[in-house]
């Protein structure tokens, strides 16, 4: 079981931003979504998720709104801001460059 915190620093931020780029979600849905898409490889720990969400909110990359969830309860929905969208692009570019570099090393060496 991979832990996001074991990954390169900032990866969790990238995953969250990417997840939110499609639609606004609450915390639990974000965790679920990452888990599903990654084929249950990546499990986001709540202990990392919520501090990360609050940090991103402080940075102004995502914004939060209380709304009714699918079960009818009030939940805190996060969505991407314009700044967050830019941040996602630049972090994704970074990530692509980095993973490509790592792949190259793995294939050549």
């Amino acid at each position, binding site marked *: 079981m991979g832990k996001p915190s074991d990954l390169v620093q900032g990866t969790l931020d990238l995953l969250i931003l990417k997840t939110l780029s499609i639609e606004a979600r609450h915390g*639990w849905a974000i965790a679920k979504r990452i888990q599903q898409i990654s084929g249950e490889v990546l499990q986001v720990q709540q202990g990392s998720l919520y501090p990360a969400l*609050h940090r991103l909110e402080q940075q102004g990359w995502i914004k939060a709104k209380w709304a009714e969830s699918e079960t009818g309860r009030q*939940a*805190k929905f996060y969505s991407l801001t314009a*700044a967050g969208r830019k941040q996602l692009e630049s972090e994704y570019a970074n990530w692509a460059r980095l993973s490509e570099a790592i792949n190259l090393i793995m294939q050549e060496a």
Partner: protein
Amino acid sequence: MNSPMRSPHKLLMRTRMLFLRNRAGDQLQAELQFHLDQQIAENIAAGMSAEEARRAALRLFGNPTALRDQARATWSWQWLESVLHDLRYGVRTLARTPGFSVLAILVMALGIGANVALFTVVHSVLLKPLPFKDQDRLVRIYEADAKGRFQDNIVAGGTFAAWQSQAHSFEQMAIKQWMHYDLAGANGQLPEAAPAHTVSWNFFSMLGVQPALGRSFTAGDDRPEANATVILSWGLWKRRYGADPGILGKTILLDARPFTVIGVLPAWFTYPDAKIQLWTPLYHEKSAQVMQMHEAHNFDVIAKLKPGVTIQQANAELNTIQAAIRLQHPTGPINDAANIRPILDAEVYDLKAGLYTLLAATGCLLLIACLNVANLLVARAATRRRETAIRTALGGSRARLIREQVIESLILSIAGGALGFLFASEILQWLIHSRQDIPRVESIHIDAIVILFATGVMLFCGLLAGLVPALSTNDRQILSTLHESSRSHSGGRAGIRLRRILLALQVGLTVVLLIGAGLLIASYRHLRSVDIGCATHDILTMRLDLPKGKYRKPDQIAAFYEQFLERARSVPGVQAAGLISVLPGEGRGRDDTFDIREHPPLPKGENLDATTRFVDPGYFSAMRIPLLQGRFFQPNERLDQAQSIIVNREFVAEVFPNEEPLGKHIVGGPGDSTKTFEIVGVVGDTLDEVSGKPYPAIFYALAIGLERDASLVVRTSSGHDPLQLALPIQHQLASIDPDLPVTHVLTMDQFLGTTTIDASFDATLLLAFAVLSLLLAAVGLFGVLSYVVAQRTTEIGIRIALGAQREQVMRLMLRDGLRPAIFGLVLGLVASAGVGRLIQSLLYGTPPTDPLVFLVVSVTLLVVATVACAIPAWRASRLDPITALRME
């Protein structure tokens, strides 16, 4: 990373987190709960029982509290939260010992209040620039002596003219003179004697001052043949003319002469002080002859330096000009050098030493207050050592512990500072009220810089008082502390040593303050016990100034004085009455040069000079001034018949050391320098200045009719309040001339008091500070020794149980307590020897190392210290050994 558009958002976020953090906390709770519930629901859907689902979800979720804290930590106000926490903790701890807290806050309030008040005065009076254009280039110029015997002579009209035409260092120069006018009453108003300045026309434009109404003087107004014009102060305009703008162009009577009002000055203009009511053009008011003389020193000169010219350069130029003037006029009272001071410096020169001394004294007081609070905090830190040690052992960081202590002392100093600020504004109210004689007193008020200073002082006190005890606790002592606390006899050695050092410093500072105060008091007592050479008890004085317009001719003047004296003597209760132009103690006033007809001419460059006074025949007996030789004036020696003079003992000693003075003649004197007067009497010396020495003096008959300013002196039978005679005498005066105002109605004692108010003020305040600090030192000594006794209870108990005599125990404890006091005393005495020299200029008749003062201070301090230590020492000697040993 940092796109600029994000910054406002961030700021908004942060502000929201700051003010809405409680709500945000609730929301976080709800958010996490929602997540947990979702997990539980999923688990149930996967087939778990409700209880199982809950436990599995919680397991996955981890520690919810830790999670909440981690999320909160991203909110960026963590530090504030922890400081707020410490603050709350500090307030709670302080509230638990209200006695200590109130004492510490009061001590801080005293120290900070006194400092803020004195700083406000120093800042407003000595430091704040005058509100004039290019004030850094404005200077006052004095005539001076090349040998340096005097530096601040006022300037003669002719000398000013020479400077003005010859010096190139100055953009312009203005000249002024203090005077007063009798402002006649109109429409039923009373007449009043209005203090005024007569100034050259460029005075206001040089200072960059525009009248609030009307116009300023022009060169055309400033000539003898011009129409008489006057500018009013704002205060006079409001008070006497009801702020009526129609006053412009109207005529008012000054000294019974008509003047046209051309302007009103703005309210803020209070130079040189707020008492000046009127301004007239100088060259219109003074005779052209006086303005060409080098001998008649009457005027203040103000000038503006050219940009880039230094005071030294300008002074060198003026010295050259002045030396040339002296060469051209080798005789007469003409100076050979000049002296330039920055304008602000010149205005407040006399006050500087006194105010800075008082400020230094309040600084000492503040330091003592801080040391005292630090001392109290060390004691508290010592009683809380176990708590500190346990917290440290449990992983509390040292920085956090120090911060906690500093925050605690900051709470004390801020509370003390707030209280002290109120205290300071009270002091200032009193000071402004009681010291109207201070120049610029009207500019004293609390402004932004004072508030900044107060804040700085507050923080300084808090940090100093907090850091000293905080840094004295050491991590490495934890183990020993935890061990130590099982046996209470050897507790806190380091803490006690620190407190002793603090105490010795405090005692040392106190000694310095006490000695400073002692020296000033000794010097003030000398000043007040000076025999000025005449009666001072049961004497009433009042000043008259006859207006020039109404009393033009000598016979009018002489007749008025004679009539007035006759009426004054007729008032019941009056034993004797007399008139003199300048009272003893009022200053030198006027002096003139003269020659002795019977003596050979003096060498060039030398001349005889004496104080000039005008008196009526009854003055000397009214003031009980002894007649040493010859006779007083006769009533018929008036006007042209007034050809005799009386001289004083100092005159005889200087001019006729081995000769008979009676029958000799002087050539010179008031009015006409060729006139001859015969010496008919010799009287005892009176002092021109209380702190000065006697000068040679010549007394002319007042009935010669040349002097319009005089003070009445009235002697009453002893035990009779002289002031009660003031009103009947003023009624008599009004029956002669209802328009004539009277000023300075005072007893002679009061009058002399006003001339020494500076010395008495400095001495009183310094004594108050010194007594306060003595009290603080005593409290400190008492506290430390009480604490030592409490710490050593067991040891003392054992000693007594083993047979130690109670007197021995008492002596042991006394010695322990007095050691820092004696150490501090020695320290203070050494420091005082240096400080005394610094305040030498404030001392009169007292050497800076006056042995009596040093002795009295040492004894006082030792007595107070012994009393403060005796109580805890006595308590120690009364200990019951059984109880003491059971305390374990």
